[in-house]
């Protein structure tokens, strides 16, 4: 047999039907659902008189719209948001899928809840009407975002009509320097490939620096595969993966666990397997990075200066000029001289317990800059509970942070957590698009420790100054 990649293996194990032109019906093991991209899909089912094919493999949780202030136990004030969450409540009940309602302690961002509850396992196919489904690839699962029509298709058939993507390898060799995190890896890769560099590919991340990452770090890396244009990112499962999965509520147990483990251990790319595209970065060369523009590819080391539009070529010249104007930045300014009004720590990129521990490590015993608005939004109710148990919440509150309930929050600002026009934010989320965090708001993407440092100093800061 010719050598195959990890992606090939998972793909082959899920093809339920294939036509001559290569169009496949890919069987879906886990379907995650949230309130924003699902109402029209459930409505479609109702209108056609269809059922959910596999309610047991379908998991729903509201996250995008929910307020993150404690008074949410009394209900959602915003009418449209309330209607959307109520629609999910009803749909989950009517169609009998697994559900974590807003006030359940297990509620949280769908991409944090899935792994936390053991729904996401190696070798699975996982989809969700959300592009950051790529996150689950950290487990060696083929996971990607789909549109609402496809959500309806999966609900009705538990399959997806797909053609196979190409294989791309992103290798990060060696060790990371102190202060450099998974977030810096994933941003550095996008800086290298551009936001369309992965279009048409499934990326496998590998190399020593990836192997050394915790599951949390691996999820951060895969989360942003989509910002590099790839539908999915994958990391082969290993002991780190098995240790994370074992004992989770929906992970296999006993003999099932042994059988699963035996299969999981076959999930790796064979030696000599061919990739259509390869990108290699040296871990030692990656610096703490920050974005200066309105595309995730606008990445620079924190030690750099704001670029000139004329530094670029082709269509990027106009795009960069537009970004600089939107961001209100002057070319040539040192990045560390850029003042910050708001700090947002959270999202499916960096809202896990390890992220919060790292932030606490930086801000413990210190105070955030006067006048700074700084939010910490845990990725799930369980992350929040654990942070409270470990004493992290107290550290945050003492330092002057707001300590919120779980949800997407200011990552996309569909709930009341928004930037004002012109406000400038250091954010641990994944998108710096125009208006993403509020109309006219300006976003700099950074790692959790870099966000923590900016909260203390009031400007973009090199975390290495704190080490």
């Amino acid at each position, binding site marked *: 047999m010719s050598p195959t990649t990890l992606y090939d293996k998972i793909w082959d*194990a899920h093809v*339920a*039907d294939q036509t001559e*032109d290569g*169009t496949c*019906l890919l*069987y879906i*093991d886990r379907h995650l659902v949230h309130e*924003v*991209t699902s*109402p*029209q899909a459930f*409505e479609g089912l109702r209108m*056609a008189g*269809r059922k959910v094919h596999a309610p047991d493999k379908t998991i729903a949780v509201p996250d995008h719209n929910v307020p993150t202030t404690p008074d949410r136990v009394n209900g959602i004030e915003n009418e*449209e*948001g309330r*209607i*959307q969450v109520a*629609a999910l409540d009803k749909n989950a009940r009517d169609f009998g899928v697994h559900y974590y309602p807003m006030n359940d302690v297990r509620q949280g961002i769908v991409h944090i809840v899935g792994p936390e509850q053991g729904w996401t*396992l190696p070798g699975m196919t996982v989809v969700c*009407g*959300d*592009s950051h489904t790529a996150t689950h690839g950290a487990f060696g699962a083929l996971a990607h*975002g*789909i*549109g*609402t*029509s*496809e959500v*309806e*298709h999966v609900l*009705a*058939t*538990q399959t997806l*009509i797909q*053609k196979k*993507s190409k294989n791309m390898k992103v290798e990060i060799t060696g060790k990371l320097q102190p202060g450099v995190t998974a977030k810096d890896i994933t941003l550095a890769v996008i800086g290298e490939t551009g936001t*369309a560099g992965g*279009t*048409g590919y499934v990326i496998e991340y590998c190399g020593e620096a990836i192997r050394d990452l915790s599951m949390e770090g691996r999820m951060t890396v895969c989360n942003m595969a989509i910002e590099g*244009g790839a*539908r999915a990112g994958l990391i082969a499962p290993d002991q780190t993966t098995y240790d994370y999965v074992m004992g989770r509520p929906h992970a*296999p147990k006993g003999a099932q*666990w042994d*059988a*699963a483990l035996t*299969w999981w251990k076959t999930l790796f790319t064979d030696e000599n397997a061919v990739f259509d595209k390869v990108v290699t970065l040296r871990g030692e060369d990656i610096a703490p990075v920050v974005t200066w523009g309105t*595309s995730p590819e606008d990445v620079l080391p924190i030690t750099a200066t704001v670029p000139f539009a004329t530094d670029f070529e082709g*269509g990027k010249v106009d*795009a960069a000029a*537009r970004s600089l104007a939107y961001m209100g930045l002057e070319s040539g300014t040192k990045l560390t001289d850029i003042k910050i009004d708001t700090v947002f720590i959270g999202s499916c990129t960096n809202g896990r317990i390890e992220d919060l521990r790292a932030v606490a490590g930086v801000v413990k015993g210190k105070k955030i800059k006067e006048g700074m608005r700084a939010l910490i939004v845990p990725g799930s109710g369980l992350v929040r509970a654990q942070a409270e148990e470990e004493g992290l919440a107290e550290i945050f509150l003492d330092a002057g942070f707001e300590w919120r309930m779980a949800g997407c929050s200011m990552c*996309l*600002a569909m709930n009341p957590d928004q930037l004002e026009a012109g406000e400038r934010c250091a954010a641990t989320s994944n*998108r710096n*698009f*125009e*208006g*993403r965090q509020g*109309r006219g708001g300006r976003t700099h993407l950074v790692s959790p420790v870099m966000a923590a440092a900016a909260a203390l100093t009031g400007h973009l800061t090199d975390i290495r100054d704190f080490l």
Partner: protein
Amino acid sequence: MEKYQKLTGIAAPMPLINIDTDMIIPKVFLKTIKRSGLGVNLFAEMRYNDDGSEKDDFVLNQPAYRDAEIIVAGDNFGCGSSREHAPWAIKDFGVRCVVSTGFADIFFSNCFKNGILPIVLPKEQVDLLMKDAEKGANARMTVDLEAQEITTSDGEVIAFDVDAFKKHCLLEGLDDISLTLAKADAIQSFEQQAQQSRPWV
């Protein structure tokens, strides 16, 4: 879905690269639980001032392009989120074809599900169509999916590729779900076999 007909219409030039789905339909409009009515919000932040008045310099606000049915776009159109609200808004506005050097994957497949034809062409040809689109309302392009050809206002013909299955579905207005449900047996036998080989799933 209705059958995809041959289209002759005005093309709006949008040369900016990396037009993301947040630009196409800002998230404030994602709170709807319907598919329809999003056309007025298409490109809202680029199209309207804070007070709701139109920005004169935005292409779709210019008299020549208000009825555009085709968009000729810069590279990597539709990057960002999976929100199908983006194609819903485009369709509701009246656009049925977008041409670019590249599209983001999810947006690309979302288009086909909503009767929008995304066409990928090499840069020189997109540049040529961009120039044609810049001529304004008198320069109508024709998009013929059946023949896989675009004809510029000058009569120049450009051939394009399209996935055969997707083309078939668009032309016939087929609904994916019914097509797949016709293969229920294949799905069922896959499930039985998976129950044996991966019972923990």
